[in-house]
């Protein structure tokens, strides 16, 4: 038995299930799936795709060629991949195809907490919800077998507490997978209307067969307990329920779509009061209610945020009938600890030496409208930099900056888009084409730190390295911008404040699209050693100008400059900002 995270277990499951191709774009909490496949299972072709849509298309192609395929993404990544997903459900597969949707209830590292179980229902593909790492591993093989048996892509939905929790896993030998090869099949794979109409009808038939499978699969099981109370649950909520109400009757749904209405009815008939415990949306509850079964769910349990065992206990104990039964077993509602006086927060910050800091410092000084994006640089929206105005989704800032200048040309000279290098490849390029094509004037700043930093430093098409750290071609952003028709292209070092300021001022003044590549490698990537500059505290007047950089290595104890010698890597920004020469320029500033 090995202690594995859900993501490590999924990677192991891919190996045991004979997966041949695995593709993904990094996104918390899904990232470690492909990382672990790349690290531990050399027999599987693994890649970082530029975005989730491409990843899924790679998976569909691999499946058609006869190779089992796994594609992984965070919940919002499925939005990007939704286009191929919806129609791949029509065409079906050749070899098995499994899509991992890693949801993030509570938004530990996401911009929303959409419930992707609805995607399975929307596309009408089978949905599996593992509750721990053992199931995360096992469900990959089952999902791929179901995918092949029912000629349809399958979805495995995890959540942060499954993906990033560890539990014991029993490893198995890899399965022997039946050989398949590509065969042309016009009516099945070419979704022109005449064929798609047939395939839509075929999808309805497959869904009904999958429902029959869901009714009898051991993945969906009743656990007999006190018959006065029955709880339907899936995913991590199963273990939360077992934690606080081990005495209750439980229907655990490992395969939650197509909805096994017959099984739920049978369970409901066995128990006196039916409850459903699920995070986020009433996905199961609405289907139970639609089947004419009285059920309690979101009338008791919050619809927003992450659940915890205590929160489930608190919620269900609000129901008098439930509480009466629970008291008989000694279950009591949780006692919430007394709230302490508010403590200083510890918000995430840009690292000492982070190249984004210089860029955002300049943007703040220039008082620009900054249409932002998703990555470490989203931290540029927080105090004291407060230099990023928006964060919607991957690539959004580019189109938004363009739309803003079209709606109000007055904003033209003072609006820019800021997007990271990996994010630009993911979905910023098409936005830039829109600006050029439609005679826009927007300046796009690519914060190019040579990595996908926020998710833990993954390679991407701009870094010149594959997921297995093999050298490959690298996208040259400046050349690409010129090829798209941008005539004003500059490359700057964001730790050179004056140079960065000049380039941005020049770009926003010009009545034409501009691209500025603010390039310096992520400080965590270069593993810079501490390199603090000399300071002259006697010259410091405590003006706090340097604190405006928001650098965790800087402080003014007793009103005089102090640099934390363990944190400072000598990026030189504070010396450039200081007007009293209290910080030496020459000691820092280097790489």
């Amino acid at each position, binding site marked *: 038995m090995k*202690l594995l995270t859900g993501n490590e277990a999924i990677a192991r499951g891919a190996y045991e299930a004979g997966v041949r191709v695995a593709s993904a774009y990094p996104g918390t909490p899904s990232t470690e799936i492909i990382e672990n496949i790349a690290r531990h299972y050399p027999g599987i072709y693994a890649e970082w795709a530029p975005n989730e849509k491409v990843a899924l298309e790679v998976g569909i192609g691999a499946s058609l060629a006869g190779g089992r395929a796994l594609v992984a993404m965070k919940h919002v990544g499925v939005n990007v991949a939704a286009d191929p997903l919806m129609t791949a459900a029509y065409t079906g597969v050749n070899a098995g195809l499994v899509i991992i949707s890693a949801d993030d209830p509570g938004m530990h590292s996401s911009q929303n907490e959409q419930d992707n179980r609805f995607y399975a229902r929307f596309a009408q593909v089978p949905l599996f919800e593992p509750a721990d790492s053992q199931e995360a591993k096992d469900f990959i093989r089952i999902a791929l077998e179901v995918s092949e048996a029912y000629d349809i892509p399958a979805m495995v939905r995890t959540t942060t507490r499954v993906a990033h929790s560890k539990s*014991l896993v029993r490893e198995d030998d890899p399965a022997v997978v039946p050989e398949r090869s590509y065969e042309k099949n016009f009516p099945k794979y070419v979704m022109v209307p005449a064929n798609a109409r047939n395939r839509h009808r075929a999808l309805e038939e497959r869904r009904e067969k999958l429902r029959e499978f869901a009714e009898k699969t051991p993945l969906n099981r009743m656990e007999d307990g006190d018959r006065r109370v029955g709880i339907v649950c899936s995913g991590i909520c199963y273990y*939360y329920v077992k934690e606080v109400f*081990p005495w209750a009757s439980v229907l655990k749904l490992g395969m939650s779509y197509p909805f096994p209405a017959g099984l739920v009815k049978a369970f409901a008939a066995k128990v006196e009061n039916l409850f459903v415990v699920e995070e986020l949306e009433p996905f199961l509850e609405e289907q139970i209610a639609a089947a004419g079964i009285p059920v309690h769910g979101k009338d008791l349990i919050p619809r927003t945020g992450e659940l915890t065992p*205590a929160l489930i206990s608190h919620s269900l104990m609000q129901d008098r009938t439930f509480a009466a039964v629970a008291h008989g077993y*000694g279950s009591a509602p949780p006692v919430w600890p007394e709230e302490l006086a508010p403590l200083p927060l510890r918000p995430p910050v840009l690292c000492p030496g982070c190249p984004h800091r210089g860029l955002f410092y300049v943007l703040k000084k220039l008082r620009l409208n900054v249409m932002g994006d998703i990555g470490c640089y989203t931290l540029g929206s927080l105090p004291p930099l407060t230099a990023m105005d928006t964060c919607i989704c991957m690539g959004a800032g580019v189109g938004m900056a363009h739309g803003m200048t079209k709606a109000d040309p007055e904003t033209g000279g003072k609006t820019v888009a800021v997007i990271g290098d990996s994010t630009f490849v993911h979905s910023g390029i098409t936005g830039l084409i829109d600006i050029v094509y439609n005679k826009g004037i927007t300046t796009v700043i690519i914060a190019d730190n040579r990595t996908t930093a926020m*998710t833990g430093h993954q390679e991407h098409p701009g870094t010149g390295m594959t997921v297995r750290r093999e050298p490959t071609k690298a996208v040259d952003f400046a050349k690409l911008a010129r090829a798209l028709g941008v005539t004003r292209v500059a490359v700057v070092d964001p730790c050179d404040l004056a140079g960065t300021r000049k380039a941005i001022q020049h770009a926003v003044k010009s009545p034409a699209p501009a691209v500025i590549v603010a390039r310096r490698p992520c400080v965590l990537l270069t593993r810079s050693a501490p390199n603090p500059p000399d300071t002259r505290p006697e010259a410091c007047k405590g003006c706090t100008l340097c604190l405006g950089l928001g650098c965790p290595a*800087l402080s003014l104890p007793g009103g005089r400059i102090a640099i934390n010698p363990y944190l400072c890597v000598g990026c030189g920004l504070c010396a450039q900002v200081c007007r009293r020469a209290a910080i030496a320029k020459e000691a820092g500033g280097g790489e």
Partner: protein
Amino acid sequence: MNRTTGILIAGVGGQGIILAGKLTAQAAIIAGMDVKTSEIHGMAQRGGSVTTHVRFGNKVFSPVIDEGTADFLLAFEKLEGLRNLKFLKPGGTVILNDHVIEPLPVLMGRETYPGDVEKRIAARFPLLVVNAVAEAEASGNVRAANVVLLGALARRLPFPLSVWEKALDAVVPARFLEV
């Protein structure tokens, strides 16, 4: 009732919290127990607050420790110790690293770091303060501070020394083990 031990490890990104969690979990596995852990990645890594939950026992259901239920709080940083006090059950023990990492709002002078952390904790829970950095320095490697703190926890857990030695062998690369 199912008896599960819950240990909450709290601190700041980069302090070696994840390793401490791994070692504790590995020790429990070697001792023949069921184990689950949970941690939050992502934004927390950029100098933010970080916690790892470790639960072990005959059979563990939830990987997450509820507020008011942890047996131990292993705090790598004083403010984070105070912040996570709510996870301890009544009578639970705090092992506190005598170490301050000022968060940005404090460095910027916008907020004040609480000055009476030990007093506030000791008023409510049994408290053991460890100067892990100094002890690690004395042992020759300041980066072993996380293991020093873990040592303080280890003495209070029902695993013999041999179990911890095996856990160290299994989790820590050999080149670091000499310390």
